[in-house]
């Protein structure tokens, strides 16, 4: 098997960074997320490939929090699009865990299928390669196995890395994967490597039948109780590897300006406010319910897979201990027509 020894990791990242923007999990000051390898400051930053995960998922590589779409010039009553910013520059997400790969694959469903293609997303994804990092030891909050993710062999990866102690086993899965492998072929060695033991998931989650059951639970009293502690901040949605909702806004200075899209969150009151001022999800409970129905029911109905990837981030960061696993449990246990 092909192996990239850890001693050669930096050389490999340097080489890959020649023609690609390479995003690597890092602790950068107070921030924990995917940052470009070129921005890595050896004295300050910490590479997090050997940690369980980082707080910000790699979703902003393909769906940046703020993305300029096009610039506008107005001349009298005419408005002209000056320039569009579809960005297909080559990017590599290096070392994504299975849950985060699934987040991007779920976004592919949204932005590229069902008769609609989002040209901005499509451009970014066309230049994007995913090098996954197989997960042998799930963390305390992990439950990707229950969310249809194979953490050892994530669907959608172009290359899969397997941490074998002093090196990474390098498994190529796609043509795109072949192409990036060619860039560092001289750094890969052909040898045997001992793969780590697969550790069991400590968190037990049973998602079976939840999507179907939720169909009859829109008006269930369970949501009053579950949503009570929620303060409707957007932290869960912004650390989520698969939350993709966005808003499109414009900035104008006189006759010139640009349109951009930016992450938005169903947790915010303004998100579902309509032009006339009405709001179908004006109450905290309604926004809370929307988030979980989207993750566990609606997405599954439309795309055949849940939108939650079981990464456990929202469970860690929630200031009021909203826990999606406990919500799945509560739905399982709920009596309908009680």
């Amino acid at each position: 098997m092909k192996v990239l020894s850890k001693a050669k990791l930096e050389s490999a990242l340097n080489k890959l960074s020649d023609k690609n923007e390479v995003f690597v999990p890092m602790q950068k000051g107070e921030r924990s997320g995917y940052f470009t390898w070129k921005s890595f400051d050896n004295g300050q930053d910490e590479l997090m490939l050997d940690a369980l995960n980082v707080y910000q998922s790699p979703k902003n590589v393909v769906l940046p929090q703020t993305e300029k779409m096009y610039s506008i010039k107005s001349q009298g009553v005419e408005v002209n699009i000056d320039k569009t910013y579809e960005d297909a520059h080559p990017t590599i997400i290096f070392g994504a865990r299975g849950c985060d790969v699934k987040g991007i694959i779920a976004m592919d469903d949204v932005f590229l299928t069902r008769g609609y293609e989002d040209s901005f997303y499509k451009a970014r994804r066309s230049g994007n390669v995913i090098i996954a990092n197989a997960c042998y030891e799930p963390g305390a909050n992990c439950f990707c196995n229950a969310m249809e993710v194979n953490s050892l062999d994530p669907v959608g990866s172009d290359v899969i890395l397997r941490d074998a102690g002093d090196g990474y086993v390098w498994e190529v899965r796609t043509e795109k994967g072949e192409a990036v492998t060619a860039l560092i072929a001289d750094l890969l060695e052909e040898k045997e490597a001992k793969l780590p033991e697969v550790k069991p998931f400590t968190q037990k989650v049973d998602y079976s039948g939840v999507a179907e059951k939720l169909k009859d639970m829109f008006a269930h009293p369970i949501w009053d109780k579950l949503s009570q502690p929620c303060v409707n901040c957007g932290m869960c949605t912004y650390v989520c590897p698969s939350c993709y909702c966005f808003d499109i806004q414009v900035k104008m200075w006189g006759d010139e300006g640009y349109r951009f899209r930016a992450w938005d969150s169903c947790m915010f009151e303004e998100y579902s406010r309509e032009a006339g001022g009405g709001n179908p999800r004006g109450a905290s409970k309604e926004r809370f319910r929307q988030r979980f129905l989207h993750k566990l029911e609606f997405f599954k109905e439309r795309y055949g897979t849940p939108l939650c990837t079981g990464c456990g981030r929202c469970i860690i960061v929630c200031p009021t201990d909203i826990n999606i696993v406990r919500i799945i449990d509560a739905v399982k246990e709920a009596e309908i027509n009680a």
Partner: protein
Amino acid sequence: MKEITNKIQTIASNLFADNKIDVFLAWEKGDLDFKTKSFVARNAEDVKNIVFDEYSINNIANSLLKFRDSHERIGIAVKGCDSRGIVRLLEDLQIKRDRLYIVGIPCPGMKDPLTAARNRGGFSKQKEADGLAKKCLDCIQPNPVIYDELVGPEQSPRQQGDRFAKVKEIESMSADERYKFWEDTFSTCIRCYACRQVCVACDCRTCIFDEMKPQWVGRENSASDNMMYHLVKHAHMAGRCIECGECERVCPVNIPLMLLNRKLIKDVGTLFGGPDAGMQYVEGSKPPLSVYRENDPDSFL
């Protein structure tokens, strides 16, 4: 703490039995020992879930905002900082005093469940210290300032040294250095608005950041929009921040938000004098920036 829990439960049970309240706001236990969260007991049966333990850090006064438009009579358990939040809500006429039965708990200082959750989560290589939360080490008012009944022995403030030392350090920078400091600090913000949502002093019905017609602050995650968000949010807190420290505690990127709040506390104290926000409740009183007086200081204009 077990004793305090028992006392709160007894008080809440009696209040339900005497039909004096419709709900009781306190904390309950989650599935792990560090998981304590805000809780609404709706009847005597729910009372057994109430706890007060070393992780009861959430500011319960914030839960009152969900009841400001209803008529329930509310029992509520509060620590020192939470009680200052109640004073703020009373001053802003968000809730009526006669709807509340306040059980005050002198607070011995809390641990942060988020620190424990991060340590358990395994996303960082170093473990964080799990002693008293930073906000509790900075606490100047552990004893409730408003209550109908007090449970437990009085506690001493834990804040040591000059409370504004760090503020003075920033003040002594040149304007350019200061700008750079804040620009760098706010550049990490992910605009999740958790700092706003957990803030009990943020009680506006429609927040300026949610206004779309006109839109005052853009949604771009950029230096200018991020800075606009934080400076406007915190300027609104001038004379209103009760120093519960929840904004800084919940921030997912550890922005030192209390530094900004303390600067404003220091300035408002210097300019207007008087007690800090929420330190005492006098019916009809307003924080300095909510009223106009002819002799208001204006040398900075």
